[in-house]
């Protein structure tokens, strides 16, 4: 290990001491990798101050880099809480909610829909056209369309449950892992398109076109995301992001 190489776990000599050796702003500007270098120095300075504070305090040494709960986190949390409580009181006072007449249990509405956040599941029940008519069954389907829709729900929820095991989510921003960001955007788009499919009788669009778009748009969205993020990696910001990567505390 050479002395010139900065170590992010504190074992090396890459610490920038807060004294006369600290570069001035004009010196920082003259460096070629200005932003990434500045970021590095900032984190090193913060880490050094954190280390000094620990060594002179009576706290038990922990290898967790964070701000103390009191007062830093608590002041921030109280500010946020005060803001949202105040906003709730303001809105409740100025725009009190409408209390409509009770629902009539004797009349069935013409259009029956689940709540909007369940449209995706409702749309998965309408995948009948995808239910394959198998030649081995003499042109019959393996299961009824309604069973197929329920199985589609299980499959989609299963895929969503599997994704965290395939990708641990170590990237802090999408540009670090364009593929998984593209997978996320495809899933996000599919959530919207399948929700639109569930209310196809209310949308002013041809149902067959809507059905095709339901599966085409997620692919287009994912491909676009991947292309954009891959081209963003070429930009200068990615050097900065790689620097952040290296500055994370070691496991």
């Amino acid at each position: 290990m050479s002395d010139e190489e900065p170590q992010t776990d504190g074992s090396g000599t890459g610490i920038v001491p807060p004294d006369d050796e600290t570069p001035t702003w004009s010196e920082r500007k003259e460096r070629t990798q200005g932003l990434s270098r500045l970021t590095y120095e900032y984190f090193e300075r913060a880490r050094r101050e954190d280390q000094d504070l620990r060594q002179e305090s009576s706290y038990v040494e922990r290898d967790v880099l964070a701000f103390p709960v009191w007062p830093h986190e608590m002041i921030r949390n109280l500010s946020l809480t005060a803001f949202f409580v105040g906003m709730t009181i303001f809105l409740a006072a100025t725009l009190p909610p409408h209390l409509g007449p009770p629902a009539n249990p004797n009349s069935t509405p013409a259009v029956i829909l689940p709540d909007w956040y369940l449209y995706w599941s409702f749309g998965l029940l309408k995948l009948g056209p995808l239910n394959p008519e198998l030649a081995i069954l003499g042109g019959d389907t393996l299961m009824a369309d309604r069973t197929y829709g329920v199985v589609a729900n299980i499959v989609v929820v299963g895929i969503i449950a599997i994704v965290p095991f395939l990708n641990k989510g170590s990237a802090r921003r999408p540009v670090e892992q364009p593929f998984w960001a593209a997978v996320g955007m495809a899933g996000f788009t599919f959530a919207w398109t399948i929700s639109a499919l569930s209310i196809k009788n209310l949308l002013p669009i041809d149902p067959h076109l809507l059905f095709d778009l339901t599966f085409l748009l997620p692919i287009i969205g994912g491909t676009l995301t991947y292309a954009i993020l891959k081209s963003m990696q070429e930009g200068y910001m990615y050097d900065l992001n790689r620097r952040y990567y290296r500055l994370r505390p070691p496991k």
Partner: protein
Amino acid sequence: MADEFIKGLAIAAGGGLIWMVLSGWYTTPGFEDAQLWGAIPEGLDAYGQAAIMLREVLAWFIILGVLAFWVVIPALEQLREASS
């Protein structure tokens, strides 16, 4: 750039909040009727007329403020960077 973004966002959120409250008071005939965008009622008192005027002012404040901070000022900065 981030400063300009948060200024535009603050104008949109803050102005939009007051606009929404005034619209809920004056231009919302009913819950199952037109909401926020309803017709301006006739025969308002002085407070009502002032509120309607403030609503108009806020609408233009949001449009012009967001345009200024998200479009015009960044475009001018880009132009200045490109020319220098």
